[in-house]
């Protein structure tokens, strides 16, 4: 599937800021399931800094803005040819040891409820992973606005509601509690005409499954990532895998506004 992405993040400050620095994970991953046709990231008034591929295979780019500026536009546009690999991250170059994804972080700490939810029986590892993803989908209803950026997996499960970030955190916490390496993935999702899919700027989880390597699971949509998904990068949790991390000097109030459109491009 040929997907066209238009993603604009607009930061507005109530007074000018200086010395803005951002770290981006905004370039599609390189693996058998996706091929970049063209891709461009621009930052208004920005100076491009260091760029490199990290141990997890993500392309990291840094930007700085000397300022003063009252508004920053981060614009991502491009086309990616995707292939449905039923969630398997095939042909992805990375060197970070899977065992290092067994460490929990504050939002992915498994409490008693998450550990119990992870008890979906034994069996073939891939089947166990699927059952855990289903368990998350059943336990946390999709309800935008019920959680925030710092909600933990345990809190989301306790209230039984959340968004894709909470689904992913919950699945990650459960997998790690069972000794299965798991990580958070940021990306985009193409929403079809019926509007079935949830969020265009999307997130899901990857579990390291014996015999398959990293496999994606999207509890929010009760499926594995297919050719509607564009993968950007991964991390231990949402913050660690964030597409944009930034900071500025000064005491200004920041307002952020994001628009993402993922469309089926013309061939």
């Amino acid at each position: 599937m040929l997907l066209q992405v238009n993603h604009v993040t607009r930061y507005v400050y109530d007074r000018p800021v200086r010395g803005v620095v951002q770290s981006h994970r905004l370039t599609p991953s390189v693996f058998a399931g996706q091929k970049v046709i063209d891709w461009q990231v621009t930052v208004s008034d920005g100076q491009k800094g260091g760029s490199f591929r990290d141990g997890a295979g993500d392309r990291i780019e840094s930007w700085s803005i000397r300022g003063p500026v009252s508004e920053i536009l981060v614009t991502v546009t491009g086309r990616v040819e995707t292939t449905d690999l039923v969630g398997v991250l095939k042909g992805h170059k990375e060197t970070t040891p899977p065992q290092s994804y067994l460490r929990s972080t504050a939002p992915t700490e498994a409490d008693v409820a998450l550990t119990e939810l992870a008890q979906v029986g034994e069996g073939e590892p891939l089947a166990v992973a699927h059952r855990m993803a289903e368990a998350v989908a059943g336990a946390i209803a999709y309800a935008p606005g019920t959680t925030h950026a710092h909600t933990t997996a345990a809190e989301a499960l306790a209230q039984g509601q959340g968004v894709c970030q909470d689904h992913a955190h919950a699945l990650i916490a459960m997998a790690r509690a069972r000794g299965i390496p798991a990580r958070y993935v940021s990306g985009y999702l193409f929403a079809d005409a019926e509007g079935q899919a949830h969020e265009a700027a999307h997130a899901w989880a990857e579990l390291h499954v014996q015999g398959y390597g990293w496999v994606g699971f999207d509890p929010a949509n009760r499926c594995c990532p297919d050719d509607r998904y564009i993968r950007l990068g991964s991390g231990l949790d949402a913050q660690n895998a964030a597409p944009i991390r930034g900071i500025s000097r000064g005491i200004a109030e920041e307002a952020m506004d994001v628009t993402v459109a993922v469309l089926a491009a013309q061939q």
Partner: protein
Amino acid sequence: MTYFNEMFQDGKTRPPYARLANWTESMPAPLRQMKQAEAEALFRRIGITFAVYGEGGDPDRLIPFDMFPRVFTGQEWSKLERGIKQRARALNAFLLDVYGRGEIVRAGRIPARLVYQNEAYEQAVVGIVPPKGVYSHIVGIDIVRTGPEDFFVLEDNCRTPSGVSYMLENREIMMRMFPDLFRENRIQPVDSYPARLRRTLASVAPAKCKGEPTVVILTPGHFNSAYYEHSFLADLMGIELVEGQDLFVEGEFVWMRTTEGPRRVDVIYRRMDDAYIDPLCFRPDSMLGIPGLMDVYRSGGVSICSAPGAGVADDKAVYTFVPEMVRFYLGEEPILQNVPTWQCGKADDCQYVLENLGDLVVKEVHGSGGYGMLVGPKSTQAQIELFRDKIKADPSNYIAQPTLALSTTPTFVEEGIAPRHVDLRPYCLCGESIDLVPGGLTRVALTDGSLVVNSSQGGGVKDTWVLAE
């Protein structure tokens, strides 16, 4: 338990201390007290202090200085030197490996869990090859002695070992107060340390740096317990002492604010934990760090000493495997031995530890500074029981070691001269080459019978002499 006295053996004075016997005889108590007061006044004037956490009182109190020097022969030192350098090389080889191909884990010589699930293992630096392949540029190795030929490594410090300013100041003060001693004894100098540290730091400048590298020391600020040392070293090296707010990232580099405008920084000797150095990569709430520093580092625009992630080599559970690292990477037998260590995370070890708590020293895996430890033979039954509960609650957080018969050296005390237990921390420099000044910091447990030498637990320091051959 009998202890090895480094000065007296079988009623005789051991050769390295021969000339010190006359020295003490020529110094009656009143003169000694006068000298001690003079030493204290000098330390006060210099301003050398060490904050002690969690004890209340004066945070700027003096660390007690004992005038009686600790002495090694050239021959003793040459063995120590080879052992220390060997260990520092192995630790750096390990760090490069576990952030690279992980050969030692693949070969089954160390459990993957201990390395990759370690809190100090930084995913952010996987695949990074720092300049000259060095992660830990200053390796502080704590060594204890139990006999004439018996030295053991107590722990490794690969992040930012402190205390080297005391090594330099102790020498300075001894030379000022007792110039005769330095004429009578052929003592190898240590004052080249700052120049050698600076050379080491400059040798790991990034490839993007052309010409003379700009090196700075990054401190968390004056409230940090080792702030005195940070400013002291900056002075002696002739480099800038900076805080996070003095540096910023723009484009591909890190810059320092100066009165003449921004100046590019090539090497940062940071005296700050990984978690605080960059809010964009680590703790987002850190106000001490430099936003974007890690991206510059990872794209080769700046060097950070020690490199982020170096802490995975000095963990107390990983410590057990350092002799194995020496064999695996260097193909050599370790010159310095480890203290036998029981991992409470292993069921058999844990059982042994719980049955023998009264005889053992128990430490937290991530603890430092002598906090959170139990010295079995010196503890009350209540303290032992408290530790039993702690270990049972979280076994893998503890290791245990036999209570070592730490050597003693003569020390000035209220009643005159008495043996007190000591350890040694040398500072090994790793850059283009491996370098070590002949000496280190000797810490002394001033309380009679105490085996805890940490300055945060009331320990003192001594000048450490290495005699020329």
